[in-house]
């Protein structure tokens, strides 16, 4: 199932609705990259509240989204990692240190807003 991506001002919100297959995750990566270019987005929130498992593949792919979008001048923040999922990720040995995270969508958007307020205007569109 494709993950819907909504545009909200300078940001994109990708809201994962249900368990993701590897194919869904790879499609999300592609879709986010396309949309960042199309809308000249400055930030992306990926909401994983609905995910009951973040295994090494999903974690690596989300980290990949964060790194790739950063190269395009947009920051990604992952929001809504469930407590059990966080526990499992640590046990698994996932390193998520270079990825921004926030408690929920609201916090994630606040983080991105602060970030673009701090930066000098890049002069885009």
């Amino acid at each position: 199932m494709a993950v819907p991506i909504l545009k909200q001002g300078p940001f994109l919100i990708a809201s994962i609705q249900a368990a993701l297959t590897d194919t869904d995750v790879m499609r999300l990566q592609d879709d986010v990259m396309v949309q960042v270019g199309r809308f000249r987005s400055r930030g992306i929130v990926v909401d994983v509240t609905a995910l009951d498992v973040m295994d090494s593949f999903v974690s690596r792919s989300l980290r990949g989204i964060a790194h790739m979008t950063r190269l395009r001048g947009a920051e990604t923040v992952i929001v809504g990692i469930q407590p059990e999922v966080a526990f499992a990720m640590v046990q698994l040995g996932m390193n998520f240190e270079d990825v921004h995270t926030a408690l929920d969508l609201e916090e994630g958007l606040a983080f991105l807003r602060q970030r673009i307020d701090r930066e000098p205007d890049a002069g885009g569109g």
Partner: protein
Amino acid sequence: MPVAGDVRVAIRTDADVVTARQEARTMGAELGLSSTDLTLLATAISEVARNITTYAGEGEVALRVVERGGRRGVEVVASDEGPGIADLELAMQDGYTTGKGLGLGLPGARRLVDEFELRTALGSGTSIRLVKWTRA
């Protein structure tokens, strides 16, 4: 004592990986595994089942309820008839991979469950047995 029936999930595609971990969640929840333990188990299954799709192409995840000393648990056997693992010690090291992953799959899965046993033979396949027990 009534015990839930065995469940076998054929693993051919990445969607089957999701089915296998959801079946395990259902079985574990019936036994009374905690929410955290269910997540750890589901994550471990995701890792070993993905090893099947990545390296062997196809295989199976079999789930059953086991009992020992008054505790019950979910036993998972993920098996395939793929190429087998050439260097088991290396495969169990964090960060080692011959594929496209991070090399956290097998060593990570071992940390998520209570029992982890891996058998492999070059050319004839791999079988990984996991157990997650209810807390006493």
